[in-house]
């Protein structure tokens, strides 16, 4: 896949979902500003990850049929398409987390940069896991969404289980979850049947 094709897929997906991303950023700004000072770490992790899951679910087929048809007709392999398609919700979720952090800073209760990195890792991992649900249906779809929610819970539990070891465990867990989720998404897209 050429870089141009990847940029075209990401930019078109972001453009198509710009309103949803704007609403998500506005929600993150409000939540980040008014959040309780007692939850400067838990709140962004759970809130931004939930937004990430929602943004991932918007990538499913049917919302923008002309994009689905163009991407499906293009001479691209499933893995290539998966990487490009995953970038759009990942970028949106990163933006939402940054906005949340900015709003926290404005209210004088920003989490430290290390916590931001841990929260962002969790947001990206859960977003990538949720992306798999977009091409599934029925119980498999529901189970994947539950799995994405569990990713947040496990990441939070690991991050709060200890100082450095907990943080390292959380980052490793999120990296592995994200990697395998993206790989699975590529496999599923390659096998995906639009009929």
């Amino acid at each position: 896949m050429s870089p141009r094709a990847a940029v075209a897929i990401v930019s078109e997906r972001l453009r198509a979902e710009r309103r949803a991303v704007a609403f998500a950023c506005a929600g993150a700004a409000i939540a980040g500003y008014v959040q309780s000072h007692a939850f400067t770490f838990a709140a962004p992790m759970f809130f931004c990850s939930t937004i990430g899951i929602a943004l991932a679910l918007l990538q499913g087929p049917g919302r923008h049929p002309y994009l689905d048809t163009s991407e499906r007709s293009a001479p691209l392999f499933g893995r290539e398409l998966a990487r490009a398609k995953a970038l759009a919700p990942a970028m949106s979720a990163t933006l939402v987390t940054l906005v949340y952090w900015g709003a926290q800073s404005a209210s004088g209760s920003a989490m430290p940069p290390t916590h931001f990195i841990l929260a962002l890792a969790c947001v990206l991992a859960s977003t990538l896991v949720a992306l798999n649900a977009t091409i599934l249906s029925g119980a498999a779809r529901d189970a994947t969404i539950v799995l994405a929610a569990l990713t947040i819970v496990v990441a939070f539990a690991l991050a709060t289980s200890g100082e450095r070891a907990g943080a390292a465990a959380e980052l490793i867990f999120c990296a592995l979850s994200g990697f395998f989720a993206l790989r699975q998404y590529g496999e599923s897209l390659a096998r995906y049947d639009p009929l």
Partner: protein
Amino acid sequence: MLSMHILRMRDAAYARRGETIVAPTSLDLGPGDRLTHVAANAREARGLAMLAAGLARATAGSVSIGEYDPRVQPAHCKRIAAFVAHDPLPLSQIDTAHYIAYRAALWDIDPDDARVRAQALLERLAPMHEAFAFPIAAALVPSPHLLVLDRPQAAFVPQILAAAAGCAVLVVRAEERG
């Protein structure tokens, strides 16, 4: 090097959970051939068009596009076949120039070449509404060997065939609407 057949379907069918969506179909298309296939309904027409363009995989029988099997080499098939969906381009969501540039990027075609080729194609498709003409022009810009049209507007089929000169064309129509 392409074989004598651009598209060959042998009892190609598609079924899901025991329900037949595309009944077994056999057809052959050589370079430059034009063929209209009438499906029983809109759902079957869409399914058959997708099978013929390599976008979906037959659950029974075989499909070959050029020398390639869509089940094994889908990306190769998509370099040969172009698919045009029944639905028009939603002009409220994407502007036409942007759409051509987007499609050119997906096929890794020079954007200036794509624009010039699209313009020439659109002139041939002139009487058609932009929402229907642009998807056809965009499909023809990469110079495919096979154009598969899912239920095109009957009145404009002659213009489409003229615009797709030298390209095999499969028109899939539906016997009944819905």
